[in-house]
């Protein structure tokens, strides 16, 4: 099985979010970048298939040279090769068009992605890929088994779980549950050494379009201070929730 794992290079969850250039650009100053947490679940599952069932794992990212440490980390975790499509991604439409090309030329059986990236939270790349490539996809996947061509997966639904069956090729957009958090792979010394020798190919982007454009960013409004209520005056809390917040 040939697996392609999409890796988004995102600010670490604890990053302070600031903007520059008249609020038109994300301020990367002092920000540490990581593998998108949802993609980490996908990558770990891919490595599981590689180790337990035999599979090759290619990671792909659309990004400038700044993403290379993130791709090297994915290689250190166990991916066999990495591809960087050398472009600054403008939106999910653009990213999906680029990755679709890689899929078409690479003879892959499975694409694993996260359900969304935690920076722009678009949640569109897996679905767009499915459309561009005309193959099925499962979103919000929390369990995945593959035997031969048969795919058994589960996805989270509102208030429950749905079990699904499908066949390869397929696109799986994963989240927590795809693997246990304690099983998430972290690079060890040997992996880091080996990653240096693994291929990281840089390819030129193909001509493609964006369908959206970010005009500017706004930070969430400063919240007004928390109103403190005395623990011995719960009637006051109920009063505030009923009359002021109007939520009960």
């Amino acid at each position, binding site marked *: 099985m040939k697996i392609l794992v999409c890796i988004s290079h995102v600010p670490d969850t604890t990053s302070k*979010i600031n903007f520059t250039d008249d609020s038109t650009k994300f301020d990367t100053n002092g920000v540490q970048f990581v593998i998108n947490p949802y993609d980490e679940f996908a990558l770990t599952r891919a490595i599981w298939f590689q180790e337990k069932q035999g599979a090759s794992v290619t990671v792909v990212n659309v990004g400038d040279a700044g993403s290379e440490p993130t791709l090297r980390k994915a290689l250190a975790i166990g991916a066999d090769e990495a591809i960087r499509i050398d472009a600054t991604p403008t939106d999910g439409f653009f990213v999906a068009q680029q990755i679709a090309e890689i899929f078409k030329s690479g003879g892959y059986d499975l694409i694993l992605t996260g359900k969304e990236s*935690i920076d722009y939270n*678009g949640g569109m790349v897996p679905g767009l890929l499915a459309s561009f490539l005309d193959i099925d996809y499962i979103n919000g996947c929390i369990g995945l088994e593959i035997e031969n061509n048969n795919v058994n997966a589960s996805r989270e639904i509102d208030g429950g779980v749905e079990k699904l069956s499908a066949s390869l090729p397929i696109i799986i957009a994963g989240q927590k549950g795809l693997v246990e958090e304690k099983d998430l792979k972290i690079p060890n010394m040997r992996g880091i050494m080996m990653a240096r020798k693994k291929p990281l190919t840089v390819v030129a982007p193909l001509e493609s379009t964006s369908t959206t454009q970010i005009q500017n960013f706004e930070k969430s409004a400063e919240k007004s201070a928390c109103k403190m209520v005395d623990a011995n005056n719960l009637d006051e809390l109920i009063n505030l929730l009923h009359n002021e917040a109007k939520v009960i």
Partner: protein
Amino acid sequence: MSVLVYADSSEGKFKKTALEVVSYGKAVANQLDTELTVVTVNATQPEELQNYGANKILNVNNSDLNVFNAKIYAGIIIEAAFTSNTNIIIVSSNTDGKYLAPLVAARFNAGYVSNAVEVPSNTSPFTIKRKVFSNKAFSNTVITADSKVIGLAKNSFGIKENPTTAEIEEFSPALLTSSIKSESVEKASGKIAIADADIVVSGGRGLKAAENFKMIEDLAEVLGAATACSKPVSDMGWRPHGEHVGQTGKPVAANLYIAVAISGAIQHLAGVNASKTKVVINTDPEAPFFKAADYGIVGDAFEVVPQLIEKLKAFKAENA
């Protein structure tokens, strides 16, 4: 040219998100000075949508569609868009909506914006405010393509009545095929799902043991709320994993989120920031959650929560 909304239902009944997305669709249609068409699947009372501004309702009745399939449902929306000659399609950014929206967008070469929080601030260029960076900021995004797909973030617009008289049509689109088969659907029965809940009561590690979550359940019951927890709580097996909210767990966009004995770590807040009103009960006045909360009580959960339950019962009895 009209605006098309997909209103989703569960076992024939419209979800709250459906009524919200129709209310929103009406506002967008008004802005563009056009009509609102709504497509629904197996709704038992499609006419209910007249209350929220639908001018035309395309109702698909087909028992093969009782179980959601993103590709097939996207196909229905696509055909409805052709039928009603629209290029603005609106869905909820709920679990199923996020699954199918990109499929619809791809078909139309549309610009797709998920997690929108307001009606467009401008319709030329078509500019929408959406949540980014896990609710820590917003972007004003212009959809440059002719066709547009908007995903509306839950509880961001609200349900607004807007009575109209709608034309209701049986709609029988050709169905796409999908290699994905649904084998089983398991719902946690009798419990309110976090995603649907208006009120969520959540407990953290400060509650010290699984059995102490009984009071969280009791508090939730008085309020008709869903229960939730912080990550360490589900990691320790005190509560099921499906209840863990936050960055790596479920997102909560409730009207009221009550956090009991939760410190308010940044990863937890990332998942609950979108809730309207947040109440925090914590022994530690320095707990970071107080900075994010609207109302705070410094106090011991073991004393405060049982009292709160009693007082709420009395309040409910009075206001019933």
